């Protein structure tokens, strides 16, 4: 049943969802968009982040977002290690296309199955004061479990955008995609720069994972639903463009929110893939692409 109230709430829910999707996608925007590394295992690392937030929350009572920040360095190191293997095994041999993709595909399933073996397939969730609260303004409903991830996600975007545009390493990361020779002339090793960038991309999975488990209960295979979403957003936003990513994330959030409000939640997963296929077919450079 269509009503203006329902539509406005769907729109706002979509925007909040989009903010969260932006956090989920930013890692892919860096690894796939800037570095051209097709890390399809990223959603699995996000679920890993969810479980780490869950353990710290359940065992020590730490707030999930604080827990994610504590885990950031570990994710950074994990990312650096994965890049090292990727670089030696595929980039140096020139086999990124087939073997590199298969490598991440393998990592995706190893991570997922390890989580299943350790935690089982039961849904897990976190405790925090704000999980069940919401702010009501007139008929508009703002659940805090959506609002807080969305706001922190936007902060994270601003921080990364500043890092990429203002610092030496950030600029070097943006340059690595375009001109490795120039980078070498600047006495920066492209491998080192790419390692840092990839490590950052994996580190974002820690926070995105915490957001995910605040928003909804998590089980190991939930990550697969996000593969299509993150790539849809990344491609729609234009590869490597952070502002594009956030706009595309909001659009997808709104599209999904309207779909589940008016057609039922079981149709929502198809929305992102539909958008992805349409983008690839008609505008592969993305919204903000040339």
């Amino acid at each position, binding site marked *: 049943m269509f009503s203006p109230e329902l539509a406005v709430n769907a729109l706002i829910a979509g925007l909040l969802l989009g903010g969260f999707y932006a956090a989920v996608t930013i890692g892919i925007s860096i690894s*796939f968009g800037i570095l051209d590394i*097709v890390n*399809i295992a990223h959603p699995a690392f996000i679920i890993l982040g969810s479980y780490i937030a869950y353990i710290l929350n359940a065992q020590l009572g730490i707030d999930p977002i604080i827990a994610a920040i504590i885990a950031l360095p570990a994710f950074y190191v994990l990312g650096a290690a994965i890049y090292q*293997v990727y670089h030696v*095994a*595929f980039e140096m*041999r020139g*086999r990124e*296309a*087939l*073997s*590199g*993709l*298969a*490598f991440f*595909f*393998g*990592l*995706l*399933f*190893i991570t997922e*199955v*390890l989580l*299943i*073996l350790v935690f089982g397939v039961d849904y897990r969730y976190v405790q925090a004061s704000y999980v069940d609260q919401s702010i009501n303004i007139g008929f508009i409903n703002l659940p805090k479990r959506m609002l807080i991830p969305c706001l922190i996600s936007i902060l994270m975007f601003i921080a990364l955008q500043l890092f990429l545009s203002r610092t030496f390493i950030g600029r070097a990361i943006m340059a690595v995609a375009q001109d490795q020779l120039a980078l070498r002339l600047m006495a920066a090793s492209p491998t080192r720069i790419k390692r840092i960038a990839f490590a950052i991309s994996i580190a974002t999975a820690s926070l995105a994972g915490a957001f995910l488990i605040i928003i909804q209960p998590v089980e190991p295979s939930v990550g*697969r*639903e996000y*593969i*299509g979403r993150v*790539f*849809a957003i990344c*491609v729609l936003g234009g590869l490597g463009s952070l502002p594009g990513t956030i706009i595309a994330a909001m659009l997808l959030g709104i599209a999904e929110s309207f779909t589940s409000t008016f057609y039922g939640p*079981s*149709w929502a*997963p*198809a929305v*992102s*893939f*539909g958008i*992805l*296929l349409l983008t*690839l*077919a008609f505008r*592969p450079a993305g919204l903000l692409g040339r």
Partner: protein
Amino acid sequence: MRSGIFFLVAVVVAAIVFGCALAINNDYVFFAGYTVLQFIVLATAWNILGGYTGYVNFGSAAFFALGAYSSVFMHKFYPMPIPVLIVIAAVISGLVGLGMGYLTLRLRGAFFAIATLALAVVLQTLIVNWNYVGGSRGAYVVRPATVAFLGNYVHYLFLLMLGLAVIALTVARTIEHSSLGYGFATIRDDELAAEASGVPTLRLKLIATTISGALMGMAGAPFPYYIGYLQPSSAFGLEYAVNSIAMPIIGGTATWLGPLIGAIVLGSLQQYITVTISSSVNVLIVGLLLVIFVVIAPNGIVGLVQSILRRRRYERKPA
């Protein structure tokens, strides 16, 4: 060896396999054997696109499920013998493969891979919401107990899958030895140079996705009769997506032999593990093997054996 002769040899080998299975006379052998044969078809089909042209398809499960659900649909709509269903499945999944390819193959290879991941979820969402074929609850497909000539229906399913494996391997080998396979290899090596040498790359890629998709759909067509009760989660199962990539890569992607060896080794291993441990451990081991092979032995088992033979020959020669 000409393709016709290869086909005859494959038929003879298949007949021997069937004879041995009958001699053992244990239904489990037929059940497990069916699964391994199904993986031979899937791995070979994946390799026609992935191994020969270098385009990675993550959506094998989608094509497999497409075949399975086209059978469920026909079973309800107008029941027909399974060989006819296999042909129908081939046409439907071949066309979907062609459509997918047409939408994404003009772009970089990574986009195609991502789009195939997407296809699996879109199709699963459609099936879950389509009540005629059972929706999320699934659909019963009652299997007759017996069939003419053979008697035992499981034997019949096994024989069908054996036939599909022979067809898939013959198709793969024929392509390899034709100018088509030659064109596929130029795409894998360097698409720009291929175009400059007159190779119609887009058309060849579309041929590869269509053949590959059609064979995967054929592998899925008898599945509802094998399992008896088809749910979206079993048709779109993880193991199909993982195995159809892992088997060719672990076996070796350069020739038809690689997927065959990979499917037999991994398929049998998994049958063993599923019986003794659990199916999660199963996926874990396949995932680990996949990662280990792409990092350490990117040319697979066939490549390993070849390099050992080459080294032997080299050592035997006087320096």
